[in-house]
C-alpha cells in the first residue's frame, strides 16, 4: 500500500488544480469563520444577548461545535478535489493504463478510497487547527470539552468526499459530476427533508434518509441554541452517526464492486 500511495502522491504533486482547491479551502475555512465571528461579536456588543444561547459560540467549549458546523458548509471543496482525482483518470484513460501496467482493479479502487480517507483526515486537521487558532486568539480558556464535534466533522467530511467519489465513478466526466454534486448537495438534499417535515409532524425523519443531510445532522446548529432546540426538532446525532457508518460501508462496497465488474 505504501508504493501505491507514493504513486497517488506523484499524481497530485504536479496537479495544480488540486493545490489551488486545497488553498481555497483553507482560505474559505478561515474566512467563513471570521465573518461569523465578527457578526457574533457585533451582535453581542449591540444587544443584550442574555438567554439567546448557552454562552459565546466562539469560546471554548462551544467553539468546537460552531466551527465544525460553519466549516461543514465548505465540504464541497474536498468533494470537488475527489471528483477531479477520479474523473482525471477517466479523461486521460489512465484508469485503463494503470490496470494494463499491472495494478489489479481492486488495488486501483482501494487506493482511491484510501485517498478519500486521507483527504477527510487532512480536511479535519485543517479545521481543527483553525478552530484552535480562533479559540486561543479569542482569549477564552482552552478546553477539550466538545472535541467530539471534530470527530463528527471527520465523519461528515468523509461522507461528502465518498459521495463525490461515487458520483465521479458513475458519471466519469468532471464538469457533469461537479455540477450534479453541487446542485444535489445544495438544493435537492436539503429540500426533500424540509418538505418531508410536514408529513412527519415536524419531526426530522427526512434528514435520516438523505445521504448528505444525515451527515449534516451530526453537527447541530450552534447559534441561539436554546431557541432553536425549542422551536425546531433537530435530528438525533447518534442515529445520524449509525446511518453515516452504514453509508460509508455502502460506498466502499459499491465502489469496489462497480470498478471490479464493469468494462473500463
Amino acid at each position: 500500500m505504501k508504493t501505491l500511495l507514493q504513486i497517488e502522491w506523484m499524481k497530485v504533486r504536479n496537479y495544480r488544480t488540486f493545490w489551488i482547491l486545497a488553498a481555497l479551502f483553507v482560505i474559505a475555512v478561515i474566512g467563513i469563520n471570521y465573518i461569523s465571528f465578527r457578526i457574533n461579536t457585533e451582535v453581542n456588543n449591540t444587544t443584550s444577548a442574555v438567554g439567546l444561547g448557552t454562552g459565546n459560540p466562539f469560546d471554548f467549549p462551544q467553539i468546537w461545535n460552531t466551527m465544525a458546523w460553519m466549516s461543514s458548509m465548505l465540504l464541497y471543496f474536498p468533494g470537488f478535489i475527489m471528483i477531479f482525482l477520479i474523473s482525471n483518470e477517466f479523461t486521460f484513460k489512465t484508469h485503463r493504463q494503470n490496470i494494463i501496467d499491472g495494478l489489479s482493479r481492486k488495488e486501483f479502487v482501494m487506493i482511491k478510497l484510501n485517498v478519500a480517507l486521507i483527504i477527510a483526515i487532512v480536511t479535519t486537521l485543517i479545521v481543527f487547527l483553525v478552530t484552535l487558532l480562533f479559540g486561543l486568539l479569542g482569549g477564552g480558556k482552552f478546553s477539550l470539552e466538545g472535541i467530539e464535534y471534530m470527530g463528527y466533522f471527520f465523519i461528515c467530511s468523509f461522507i461528502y468526499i465518498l459521495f463525490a467519489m461515487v458520483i465521479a465513478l458513475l458519471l466519469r466526466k468532471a464538469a457533469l459530476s461537479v455540477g450534479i454534486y453541487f446542485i444535489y448537495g445544495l438544493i435537492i438534499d436539503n429540500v426533500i427533508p424540509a418538505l418531508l417535515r410536514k408529513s412527519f409532524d415536524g419531526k426530522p425523519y427526512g434528514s435520516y434518509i438523505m445521504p448528505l443531510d444525515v451527515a449534516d445532522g451530526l453537527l447541530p446548529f450552534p447559534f441561539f441554541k436554546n431557541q432553536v432546540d425549542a422551536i425546531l426538532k433537530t435530528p438525533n446525532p447518534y442515529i445520524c452517526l449509525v446511518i453515516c457508518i452504514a453509508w460509508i460501508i455502502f460506498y466502499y462496497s459499491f465502489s469496489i464492486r462497480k470498478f471490479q465488474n464493469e468494462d473500463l
Partner: protein
Amino acid sequence: MNYVLEINDLSKNYGSVQALKNVTYKVPQGTVYGILGPNGSGKTTMLGIIMDILRPTGGGIKLFGEVPTAAHRRRIGTLLETPNFYHYMSAVDNLKIAAAIKRVENPDIEGVLKKVNLYERRDSKFQTFSLGMKQRLAIASCLLGNPDVLVFDEPTNGLDPVGIAEIRDLIRRIASEGKTIIMASHLLDEVEKVCTHVSIMKKGVLLANGTVDEIMANDDMAETGAADINQLKQVLQSMPGQTKVEMGENGRVNIHFSIGSAEPGKINQHCFNNGLTLTHLVMKKKSLEAKFLEMTNE
C-alpha cells in the same frame, strides 16, 4: 512448446453487438504475432480482455500458462489503442508512475526515452506532445523493465514515415532478442514486414491463423512476359507441373504451381527449348494484402 498467450473460446458482446465470436488460438513464445483485421474486427476488444480492462462474455485466457493476474501484466509491455498518460505531467514523471506500477526497480527511464528519440523532450508536459511523440512515449513506457512480452495495438499510428521505419526497426530489434511480440494492425504491409505469425480477424471471427508463410502461400506463382503473348501462353500450358496459366496485369502471363515446386530456371529453360525468349520472369508470392482481401471479402 511454451505459450505466452492462450485464448480459449473467447466471446464478447456489447449489447446486441457481438464483438468477438468464440475466438481460440495460442501465441508461442518468441514469435512476432500479427493480428490483422479491418477496423472494428475485434482486435482491440480482444487485447482489452487480455489486459483485464474489458470483461469477456464467455471463454477465457491464460498468460504464461496461468490464469492471468496483475502480476502477469507487469511482465508485459502494452500499448493499447491510444497513449494514455497524465496530461499535466512531464514525460519523465509519467514514466516514473508507469515504472512504479510495474514494480520496476531502478527503471532506465533515460534509456527508454533515448530509444524512442524523446530524450530531448523528457521534461516537457505530455499535453505539449504531438500525436507521434505521444505514441513514441507509449512505446518507451512498454520498454520499461525490459519485459519479455510486448503487446502493440497499432504501434505506428500517427507516426510519420521516418517514425514508422524507426518503430519497425525497433520491433525487429526487440524480436531478435528472442522476445515475444503481439501486434494488432490494420496495416498489412506492417504485419508482412515484421511478423512471423499472423491471425486474420473479421467482425469478431478468427478467419485464419498460422505462420505468415502458411497463411500467405497456398501456391507459387511466376509472372512472365514475351514478345508474343499467345505463343507464350501455349508454351506455358505445355509445361509439366503447372496448375494454372492465366493472363496477369500489363500483358503478363501468370503461371501457377503447387507450393514449393516452382523453379524459375526450369520455366526459362522450357520456354527457350520451345523457341521462345522471355522478356520478363518474376517469382511472386501472393501478397498478404491479396490474401487478406480474398479472405475478408467473403
